[in-house]
């Protein structure tokens, strides 16, 4: 642990971690909503987007949050009240649990799990529970259909995601996310170490499968059947209003950010720069400034990946439910299994 951090008492460290967690989840979520949902989408659709609140409408999100907080918290008469109120919190909670294992710098991490990948994949499926009970507890037919669709979809795409990550784990030889970052940045390809060895190159198939799977996990178009607004009004979110809808809304974009962070850790080298640039050999050599530069590098990569997610979201029509399932079970999973096989053979050979 960094000597500066070690001097802070335990309660101070815990407080810093909580604050850091809030920042790491909410800051990317807000940035994504403004940059991509408000502005990029508008420019793609030949309009300006919000322009009034703040310079270039940058305060629009605060205005929206203020609006949602003022609204009445409506609970349907026949809803299962306690579960109905709990559902959005569960969805957002899984995002916070997920960010815990993401490393942001040589010392800037929340917890250093040896089985970080395993934990992340396990925790990411908790949100299914929230969505399913939101659909069930709303006592609305559209919500129920949306919730069931979401459950089917998220479970189907969990599998290719896990299988895609397997390739990375085999190649890095560790499940610790921090060590995966180090392995990528200190690695070399055929003796050429100027860019390290980001796994997006050697695990390109895995990367594409992972990106498709998180597109589906985030229920973004073309996989947005759970909230398909032209069919199911708003799917499992139909009956939610006010700040409970806000929590769902934040959860959607925060999860997009956190998944993109995990993807950039697994495939793009995370917070690091290639160690060969500065002559570092292991994680202990790294200078302290990387704890500041690391999160910035990480957020840049995250924004790049979210850009791809949003780009696809804004330009593609929606698949049908059976087509989506067929795509996962007959397309992605066999390819991912083949990828694991090839990776493990090559791992033994080299």
């Amino acid at each position, binding site marked *: 642990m960094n000597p500066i951090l070690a001097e802070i008492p335990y309660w101070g460290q815990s407080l810093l971690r909580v604050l850091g967690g809030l920042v790491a989840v909410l800051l990317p979520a807000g940035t994504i909503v403004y940059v991509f949902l408000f502005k990029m989408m508008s420019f793609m659709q030949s*309009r300006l987007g919000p322009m009034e609140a703040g310079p270039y409408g940058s305060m629009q999100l605060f205005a929206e949050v203020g609006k949602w907080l003022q609204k009445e918290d409506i609970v349907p008469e026949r809803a299962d009240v306690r579960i109905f109120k709990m559902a959005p919190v569960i969805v957002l909670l899984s995002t916070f649990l997920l960010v815990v294992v993401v490393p942001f710098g040589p010392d800037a991490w929340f917890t250093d799990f040896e089985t970080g990948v395993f934990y992340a994949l396990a925790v990411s499926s908790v949100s299914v529970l929230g969505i399913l009970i939101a659909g069930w507890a709303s006592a609305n037919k559209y919500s129920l259909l949306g919730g069931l669709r979401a459950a089917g979809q998220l479970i189907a795409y969990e599998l290719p995601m896990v299988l895609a990550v397997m390739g990375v784990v085999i190649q890095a030889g560790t499940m610790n996310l921090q060590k995966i970052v180090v392995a990528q940045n200190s690695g070399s390809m055929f003796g050429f170490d100027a860019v390290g060895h980001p796994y997006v190159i050697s695990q390109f198939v895995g990367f594409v499968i992972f990106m498709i799977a998180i597109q589906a996990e985030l229920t973004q*178009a073309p996989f947005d*059947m759970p909230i398909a607004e*032209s*069919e199911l009004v708003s799917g499992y979110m139909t009956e939610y209003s006010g700040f409970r809808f806000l929590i769902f809304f934040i959860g959607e974009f925060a999860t997009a950010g956190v998944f993109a962070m995990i993807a950039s850790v697994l495939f793009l080298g995370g917070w690091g720069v290639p160690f060969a640039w500065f002559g570092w050999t292991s994680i202990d050599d790294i200078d302290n400034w990387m704890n500041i530069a690391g999160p910035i590098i990480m957020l840049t990569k995250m924004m790049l990946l979210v850009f791809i997610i949003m780009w696809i979201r804004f330009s*593609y029509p929606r698949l049908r439910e059976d087509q989506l399932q067929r795509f996962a079970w007959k397309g992605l999973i066999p390819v991912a299994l083949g990828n694991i096989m090839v990776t493990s053979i090559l791992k033994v050979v080299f």
Partner: protein
Amino acid sequence: MSITENVLGDRQRLAYIASQAADSRLNVELETEGMTLNIGPQHPATHGTLRIIARLDGEQVVWAEPSCGYMHRGYEKLAEVRTYPQVTTLINRIDWLGSFANEVPFILAAEKLMEIEAPVRAQYIRTILFELSRIANVSLFLGDLGVQLGAITPVFIAFRDREYVLNLIESATGGRFHPNFDRIGGLKDDLPAGWVDETRAVMKKLRGFCDQIEDLLFGNEIFQSRTRGIGVVPRDVALQYGLSGANLRASGVDWDLRRDHKLPMAWDKVDWKVWTHPDGDSFARCWIRLQETRESTKIVDQLLDLIPAGPVMAKVPKIIKVPEGEAWVSTENPLGEMGYYVVSRGDLGPFRVKIRSASFNNISITPWLLRGVYVPDIVTILASLYFILGDIDR
């Protein structure tokens, strides 16, 4: 059932019956029961107040029926207490996206009864405005199609480019949505200066818009997999249910009133093509409309070159009294065949008007078409049938 019997052989039919029996036994054991889903009257897919009652088994529709009349405004009855020039104000609002096209058949019916004909220049301008309102109508359909299928960008492109057409209609007639420009015996005014050149430029833009939509939507694999083979209407079924317009042409019936009816309009003066498609599925219906928008821009371009000089109004009395008689005139409107049966008793206003609007007949096929499809396909089929609520309920 008859189709199944023809296609399947005896052995397959027995296997089918056995599997149905097995399914029903399974259902008895598990005691599953269907769910009735009430789509509408307020639902984003029906873009208006259409209500569809669907019985679902899981995500599959077992039975569906449209229930219309939530926006009924009684235009047929209202027309009886108005004079002939006043009726055009009402009928403007039937298909509100292509208003000018609604006026034309009624005016033509009245002119037929009075045995007068509009001057040639007025006929040409009528045809141009008719085609412009078709473009304004169908271009919004092409954008809305994307929204119904989950792609949000095309609709904004459609709104942007439709605006050019609406501006043209506005500068010629004074009204963006409800021109109320057609008069018995001609038109209210001549075209403003510079309108012809402006229109040529806009038609060029609209052809670009068609190419853009074709790239963005029609070439997309997901769009194709969502629309191809969905909601197939065979040729004979389409004819039996009285479909018209692009829905009928998509089923392979070569039928277009612009070409087939002899009307005092200018369509026969120019060179254009009636597109048909053999498939009859949702993709065919959308594709036909895209091609028709292109044809319309071609028609307008050619008419602008041919437009003759002269008056735009024939000599008609100040107070219009239509002689006793009955007349039926129908034209090929953006949504399909639209016609008016006007009965006159020699008064200032019509004695009775029967409005035949395209959408009402087009959605009558939905119970047949929606049986057995999945919930997302309801939206695809409704979007590709393309109805305007005002045109259903009048």
